[in-house]
Structure formats: C-alpha cells, structure tokens
C-alpha cells in the first residue's frame, strides 16, 4: 500500500491512489491508475504552496509550508491572515491548531465535510485515503484528446456498499506522462459536483509533477480554487518529532 500524506491530498487529490499488485502489462483502467500513482509516489517531501480561492469577485490568497512523510503531514499557513494556523494529519486523523485561541481541535464528523480554509476542497477531499482500489472499480472507457494531449479516460465507480464521498469519478490520464490532467467527481445521481484540472507540470527529479492545478465546484458559479506549488523537494529528512501533536502547539 502506497503511503500518502495531507500534502498529496492537497496537490493530488486528483490522483486515485492505488496499489495494484502485479505488472501492468495490459493497460486496463486499474493499470493506468497504477502508473499515475507510481509517478506521484514519494517517501517524504517538503514544499511551499499558494492557494488562491476565488468566489465571485472575492479572492483570497493563502500560503503554506507542507512537510509530508508516509501517512502523516503537517501544513502551516504563512500568509498574514492565517499565520500560525496548522493542520496535522496523523494516519486518518486530522488535527487543527489555531494560534489565536491556542486551541487544538480534532476535525471529525460533519466538520470534515466543510470547505478547507474556505476553498472548494473539503477536508475529506484532502484526507483521500489510500484504499481507493478497495472502494472503486476502474474501467478504461476510451481515449480522448484533451487540448493537444492524448489521454486515456478512466471511469471509477464506487463498489457496492463502499463508504465514499463521490459515487463516480472520471479521470483523463496522459498516454505518455501518465499525468491525470482532469478529473471529474460525481454525485450518486450522476450529477457533476467538482472538476479538478492540472494546469501546469514541471520535471522534478526525473518525474513529471503537477505544480499548478484548479478545483472548481460545479454547483457554485464563479467559484474556483487554484493551488500552485512554489517549491518542492522529494525524499527529504524530516525531524522525527515534527509530525506529532506536540509540534502543533509550538
């Protein structure tokens, strides 16, 4: 099972994390998703990012530093309005620290369903667990040209009784680089809820990595969230005690 942190959730909530055992000799839907996953996999990372939340004429910019290792990650906001606010993901728990109130809050239940820092992503979206293969079945439904890129179109359907937020997903994966350029998330009745697009990629340590993406809530007019990676390093050393509850309150 590949391990991912909050950071992955943020940057790559478009990616369906997979761990398919066996060779991907034939390009089935699942095999394609495995290639996508392989491209995105890393042991640890350290990055700085910018999140621009547009809603109507309003625009909010948030900056953050993210450390990530395995399942765990820590996000610290650095823009003036939110400076010191931290999120810590430890396995499947999410904790939040507000510096003003000096208060540590565990985000659970309903709160997970709300927008992350006012963006178009919910906490739950970012908590993307790595068990999607157990939750969805994938099918390659065709190839399409997306802009000037050739892509595989993979459809994911929730398995019977699986507890997932989105009953269906549809992903457009680059046939060469296996970058998932576009992903659509659907409600049970088949209504399109969210669209996530990768706007720009960069070659980092020999892999094609998304560095700018947009999330759009299709039920809200003029509402978009952009995430831009300003700087990222893979497989870095992260101090042992950084990804712990103690570190949150410092």
């Amino acid at each position, binding site marked *: 099972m590949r391990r991912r942190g909050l950071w992955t959730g943020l940057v790559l909530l478009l990616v369906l994390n997979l761990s398919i055992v066996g060779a991907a000799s034939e390009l089935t839907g699942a095999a394609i998703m495995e290639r996508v996953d392989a491209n995105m996999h890393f042991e640890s990372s350290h990055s700085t990012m910018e999140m621009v939340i547009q809603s109507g004429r309003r625009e909010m910019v948030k900056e953050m530093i993210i450390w990530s290792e395995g399942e765990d990650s820590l996000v610290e906001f650095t823009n003036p309005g939110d400076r010191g606010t931290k999120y810590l993901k430890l396995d499947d728990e999410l904790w939040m620290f507000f510096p003003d109130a000096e208060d540590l809050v565990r985000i659970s*239940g*309903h709160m997970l369903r709300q927008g992350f820092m006012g963006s178009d992503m919910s906490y739950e979206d970012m908590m993307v667990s790595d068990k999607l293969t157990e939750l969805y079945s994938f099918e390659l439904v065709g190839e399409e040209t997306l802009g000037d890129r050739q892509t595989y179109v993979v459809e994911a359907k929730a398995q019977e009784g*699986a*507890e997932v937020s989105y*009953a269906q997903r549809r992903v457009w994966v680059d046939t060469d680089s296996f970058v998932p350029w576009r992903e659509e998330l659907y*409600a*049970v*009745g088949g*209504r399109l*809820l969210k669209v996530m697009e990768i706007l720009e990629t960069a070659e980092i340590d020999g892999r094609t990595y998304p560095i700018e993406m947009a999330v759009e809530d299709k039920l809200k007019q003029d509402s978009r969230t952009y995430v831009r990676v300003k700087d990222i390093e893979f497989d870095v050393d992260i101090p042992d005690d950084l990804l712990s509850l103690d570190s949150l309150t410092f």
Partner: protein
Amino acid sequence: MSQVLLRLAARNLWRQRRRTLLTLSALAFGVLILLVMDSLFAGFDDLGSRNLIDFETGHLQIRHQDYGDDGTSLSMDHAFRDAYLDSVRSTAGVSAAVSRLTVFGQLHTGREEYYIQTVGVDPAADPQVFPLPEFNAGDWLTPGEFQMVMGGRAAELLDLSVGDYATVVMRTVTGAFQALDFQIVGLLHTPHPKVNRMTAYVPLDVLQSGLLAEGMVTEITVRSDNRDLQGLQTQLAALAADRGELEVSTWQQTAAAFLAIGESKAAVNGIFLMLIMLIALVGVVNTVLLGALERTREIGMLKAMGMREREVVGEFLYESFIIGAIGSLLGCALAVLFNAYFVQSGIDFGVLVGDMDIGYPISGVVFGVWNWPLVLVVFAVGTVVSTLAGVLPAVRAARRDPIWALRQ
C-alpha cells in the same frame, strides 16, 4: 389611639405631598416593571416551549441512543428502519406519531451556497404531529414529488420564491454525495426562527429514495394528550426494548438546553427584580428619614405632651405603611392594565430584534402570561417591606430626648 396616629400619619404625608408622590411612584414603578417583566419572560418561555414542541420535538421523540454524539446529528449515521412506527401509533395515549428523516444539506442556487437542515416528512401525516404553520406563499408538499417547502427567511436571503428550483447536496447512507433538485412550492412563516432561517421540508419518500435509504428515518415523533408523559415514555421504551439501539425522550429532555436557559434566566431575573425593589425601598427609607429630621421639634413637643416612644414609632410606621400599600397597589393596578394588553395583543419581539438568531427558539409576537399569585405576593411584599423600612428611622426619631429635640 391608633386612629389618631393613622390620621396624623396621613396628614404628615399630605404636608409633603410632592415627596410622598415621588416615593410612591418610585415604588409603583418598581412593582410595575417587576410584574410586567415576569409576565413577558413567562411568555417567552411559553412560546419557546410551544415552538420546540410544534416544530422540533413533539411531546416524545424516539431516536437512536447515540444520535447527536460525536457530531452525528443531522447525518444518516444513526438512521433506523421505521417499522416501529405502527406499534407506536397504536399505543394508548399516543394521539399521533410520524417519522422524519432529518439530514444536513447544502442548498445551492447557483451563486449562493447555504447550509440547511433538510427534513423528509410524510406530507399527509406530519401535520397531525407538527401543525402546519402560516404560509408566506404557496402550499404544502405532495408525496412522491421533488418539492420543497422552506422557511421564508432563508428564501428571502437566497432570493428564492415559489416556483424556483434549488439543488440540495446531501450524503447518502454510505456517505456519498447526492445532489437533488427540488421545486419550491411553499414558503413558511413561523414563530420559530430556526424553521424560518434554516429548514427545508421535502417529501419523505423522495428523500429516502434519493439518499438510498428506503424505509430509513432519524426520528419518530409523538404527540400526546396524555399528561403523564413519563408514563407514556416508559411504555414506548418497553416497546423499543427489543430494538436495543432506540431511545425515547420527552420534549423536556430533548430541549434540556433551552429549559436550562430558562432556569438560569429565572435566577438572573430574581436578582434584577430584587434590585428594583431595593431602589424603591431606599426611596421609602429616605422619605421617612427626612420626615423625622424635619419634625425633630414636633416630635419633641409630642413627647413632652406625653406621647410614648411606641406611639411615635407607630406614627412613622403608619406613614411608611401608607406609602408602601398605596405604591404597591398602584403598581399592581398599572401592571394589570399593561399586562391585559400584553396578554391580549402581545408585543412584537421581531420589531425589537428583527429575525436575529438570539439562541432562542422564538421570533415574532410574545404574549404576556397572567400570574395572579405573584401579583398578590408582590403587593404584600411591597407593603410589608416598605413598612419595615420605616422602622429604623422611626425608632431613631422616637428615642430623641424631648428637651434636646425642642431646642433644635
């Protein structure tokens, strides 16, 4: 002798009629405020309780025992099959019972997103337990149709009117998003701000199939004419015993938070009311004291002519008694007049605070409540305490040595 003293006292008060009048009105005003406030606060509690029963809790509510724990209220986490409803309905003492499915929803109108509590109701049976409130516009739901009746205030905020469509995003029983479109067929105007601001009703069958939850509900609500709710609660609990996870609570238990506000408010009221009485009483003490000081020579004269200390004290006590009795009586009479108006026509609380959420299940017109025992008590306490307030200055005045007093 006491008649002479009473006449003396009355004459002395009349001599200083402006001062007497001022003290009297202070006391009367205190009594008036006390009684009217008590009436309106009782009216608040009454309306609040009625709103809770009529819109939220009924008389008894059956829910999953863990409902509301760990942020699970308004979710399907503790929904259950309502096969139990028929046996509830046939229980003696139950006038009507309905099941509802209440879930959290995000209402989208394109530009706006609004959090709303979506309540699936049986359009035919629901009004037997939750009486239909006034409609601002439109009509009630039809089973099987994608229709919505919502609070008028929410509609106003979102600029929605009858005939418009709204999309509500909710979670199915497995937690997956579901987006359903409803046509708004009615807008409600209720005395309960929560309903006006954040509630939408849709047909239960439509909501259940939309959320892949056929036959599932989050609560069964009971209306009862039975005064012994605890008894009925025990009976229903016995019925639910073989469905271990269900719990029966009376509306008082469900509404414990609101009722607790009422109780702590009563304590604050008590303090406030005592303050008003204290201010009125200081006025009485002041009047008697001033009277005694002004009449030092007179008292000396009376004593020189053989009046006893007891009689001097008695004369002053008559004065404070007259002020207390007339002031309290006047206050009570005015309070009854004002309250008659509040009981009849009420006071429109909405004008004062708008449809603001003040954490109270109340908006609109609050009606006063008669509390005759309190009127009697306030009259008696006002009179007795005013009289007693005169004791100290009266005794001081009476103890003066007549020779010293005459020299003043």
